[in-house]
């Protein structure tokens, strides 16, 4: 009867909760075209978790990475929400490197 899983569940809940403002603010100031970078950061964080020998720290790192990957798939829809006025719209976004290339890719949405 070891509550490790339940505690991890609660920590996961908190980390996913932080994903909401991450997506909202990220889209507002940077724009949805940053999605490949956000996804890449997520995968790097997950890979980093493989090299952490402390179990709970590896788990927290893995979940943090998953939150970034999931967040990257939410950016496009968040951009539409801001355009519709459901969230504040910011016209002066910081453009991502290789913006023109990224525009040709289909932004993921699940």
């Amino acid at each position: 009867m070891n509550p490790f899983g339940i505690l991890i569940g609660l920590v996961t809940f908190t980390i996913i909760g932080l994903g909401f403002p991450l997506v909202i603010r990220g889209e507002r100031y940077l724009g949805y075209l940053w999605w490949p970078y956000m996804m890449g950061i997520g995968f790097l964080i997950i890979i980093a978790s493989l090299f952490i020998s402390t179990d709970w720290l590896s788990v927290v790192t893995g979940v943090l990475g998953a939150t970034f990957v999931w967040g990257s798939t939410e950016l496009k829809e968040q951009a539409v929400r801001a355009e519709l006025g459901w969230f504040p719209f910011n016209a002066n976004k910081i453009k991502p490197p290789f913006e023109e290339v990224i525009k040709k890719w289909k932004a993921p949405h699940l």
Partner: protein
Amino acid sequence: MEINTLGLTAALTAFLSIWLGHVAVRKIEATSRTIWIPTITALALGLITEYCSLITDNLSLKTALGILGVTLLWDAFELHRQEKRVKHGHAPANPNNPRHAKILAEHSTATTLDLLKRDPVGRPVPPDEAPKLITH
């Protein structure tokens, strides 16, 4: 260096259970005639999953069930948030569902249109233009 796959297990479980919950909540809320039956079901499944996490000895399984259980408990709450979105017109109402038909009759903001089903255009979109941009 020893590889620890526990973080990867947690990442996969978190991603897949968020995805599952995201799709299931929208689908179930749109088709279910009642909101309380799916809510109670998600709550019960979440609690059972957490209990299974508590009693198993396998650390990977313990972790995965702990994460899945919490997302199921959250999904119970999301069902209500989804119904609110439908009332606000932020999620499409299903006219074939009597509960949604009632929402459409009582809330002027409710709509059958999925206003999010399009690509961003990079500028604010006024309400009268929004339906024209939806892609089918």
